């Protein structure tokens, strides 16, 4: 048996930390883990992803209910320009589409009004804008390069989307499925120069 040295002790420590870090997050056991629901098909992915591809599933009802803009208030008026990082989320989180329509099972389970995960209905100003261009020339905001430098916050096509702040796969394990810790409001201050 190798006698532990300082080097190996440190190596072991960091290895454990990294493994532990992975173990903290993850989809399994998170609120997005619908595998135990009867409508989800019993696995982690098919609630959101079709079996054929890893791209977001084209929900049958999606096109017919495309007037999502109707229910979105001011900041979401640009959501026509919103990318998949927003629209996929709002399929469930705007509360208009039953989330189990994806699997073709019976509908009726809405993200409802009592659920804090309901956004964009009625009072549109109550939510952080998504699908908007990042105000890169506003002195109240940090430069794009500084925002994306750490690799945690993404600005797909230069826009702020749901997945700029949230990771639906919960890889970080942070509360609210944030991409990184918001201790000391660090996530907010990644963009906001306040």
């Amino acid at each position, binding site marked *: 048996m190798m006698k*532990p040295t*300082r080097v190996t*002790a*440190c190596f072991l*420590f*960091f290895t454990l*930390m990294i493994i532990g870090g992975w173990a903290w997050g993850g989809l399994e056991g998170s609120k997005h883990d619908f595998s135990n629901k009867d409508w989800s098909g019993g696995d982690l992915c098919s609630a959101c992803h079709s079996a054929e591809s890893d791209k977001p599933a084209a929900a049958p009802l999606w096109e017919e209910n495309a007037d999502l803009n109707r229910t979105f208030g001011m900041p979401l008026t640009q959501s026509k320009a919103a990318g998949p990082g927003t629209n996929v989320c709002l399929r469930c989180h705007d509360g208009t589409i039953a989330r189990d329509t994806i699997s073709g099972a019976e509908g009726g389970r809405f993200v409802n009004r009592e659920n*804090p995960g*309901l*956004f964009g209905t009625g*009072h549109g*100003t*109550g*939510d*952080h804008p998504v699908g908007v261009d990042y105000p890169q020339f506003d002195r109240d905001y940090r430069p794009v390069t500084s925002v994306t430098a750490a690799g945690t916050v993404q600005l797909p096509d230069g826009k702020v989307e749901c997945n700029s*702040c949230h990771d639906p796969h919960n890889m970080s394990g942070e509360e609210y499925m944030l991409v990184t*810790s*918001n*201790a*000391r*409001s*660090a996530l*907010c*201050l990644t963009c*906001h*120069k*306040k």
Partner: protein
Amino acid sequence: MTMRRTAGWATPALLVLTNLTAVTFADESVVNSKHDLSARGPGPIRAVQEGRVCIFCHTPHNAAPQTPLWNRANPRTYYRIYESSTTDARIDQPYGPSKMCLSCHDGSMALGNVLSRPVTHPIVMTARTIPPGMADLTNDLSDDHPIGFRYDRALSNIDRQIRPPEVVTRDLPLGVHSEVHCTTCHDPHNDELGDFLRISDQMSAICVACHDMKGWMHSGHATSGKRTTGRTVDPQERLKYATVSDNGCLTCHKIHSAPHRERLLRFEREEDNCLNCHSGAIAGFNIASDIYKRSGHDGRFRTGVHDPAEIPFTMRRHVECVDCHNPHAARHNPIGTVRSTFGQTVKGPNLNASGVTITGRETDDAKFLYEICFKCHGDSVSRPRIRTSRQVTQTNTRLEFQVSNPSFHPVAGPRRNSTSVSLIPPLRIGSIITCTDCHNSDNARSARGSGANGPHGSIFEPLLVRNYETDDFTTESAQAYALCYGCHSQDSIINNESFSLHSRHIVDARTPCSVCHDSHGIYRGQGNSVNHSNLINFDLSVVMPADTPSGRRVEYVDTGTLSGNCTMTCHGLTHINFPYANTARGGTPSRVRSFSLGVNR
């Protein structure tokens, strides 16, 4: 052993890692400012566990309808709002962003009560609400700078002492309808300048961005380098900067929780705001010791009566420093030890003070010193009562000094008489004097004293610069009539160069000047140039009527240059048409009888 060594290495490594992930921001961030209420915030008021900073005011989801993503309920408090007789703005109940600030700063709502959490489970804080103190504005906003009023062109057109909103720097943002809010002056996210100010308040830069007080930029208060440190300017608050000019407006004004609500002054009693420095503590002269003298313009006389918007004619009787001085425009006295006859126009300390002109019209910017005096001593119903009972009674000094009067001291304009033999040069016929030549502090520099110029207070009543006896049977001396002899040569008077019987009356009969002369003047509406030339207006407590065939009379008749006759009883002697003339000086020749003859009939 091995385990201990491992632990010894692991702990610093963990610390380094933690430090790398921690986000550090510069001073201009809300993080680590007083508004950082998170558990690691710097102030005594902070959360017990909550680690986020923004969450106390903002939330990304399900926020209040109010931008920007507001996370607090609006207070439903009714606020007492600022009121002032001199404001032209319509001040409403606070609204918009101001209400957001007040949701903590009115001291009524719980700090941890945020919309993103149930009311029953607020964020646990070290203090439930803002504790009483500087940050607690209370629901009484009448002692705070007004908010919630429109600052637009209409306002700046009425109020000439604020700048048009277009020229106000964009660093001070107004509301969507051009209203002033808390956020106009304060940036809640940036405490770099202290007090979360958007512009520095050094030399009142942030105040003068909007306020354009007439004369301020060159005033003594804006330029004075006198040090305020180590001296108690306001016992309740240490001033921020070291000198009067750096503190600027804040030397006298308090923007929040001002003890004197109206006009936001540091002290409730008007004079305290001035005398706190002008009592020898910071300013050069001790005015406090002057006004407390026997005869003084004592600001302690009344409190709460003075109002800058008052109407001089109807105001209640009072005196405050600001009745004569405009602290926004006052400058150092350029005259110094020079006699104030040097000029009659308003000088440094009285610049831009209000007054009443010789024609009785109000003015915001008195041009002559007497105009300031006329505010209270002219037409005002509160003017001082009479002291001496005379033939002609007039207490309105504005009327007494009219240049069309039969006789008057030349304050509002020169006299037109051809003789005035006793004047001491440089005074001569045609000279103009000021009120303060006679009414001044007894230790004024212009009277060779060491104190401040101006009628602040004197040991000689009524606020005279030198002694002036008015009691009958006063022994004549340079001291007894020092006031008169300052301009009228004692030698000339005693040697009878003007009135041929001066010596007989003043020295022999010990009659004071004031028995025959009414020093201000005789109003043309009451007297005429025959009976009231040469400031003759007899003191009826000494001068009695004489029985004449035409009835009991007290009368002086001017019969020409330096000649005339008198009818009255004085000191037991009766004169009836008793004539005098000074032939040596060109007076009209007439019969001259010796005074010693006694009763003349």
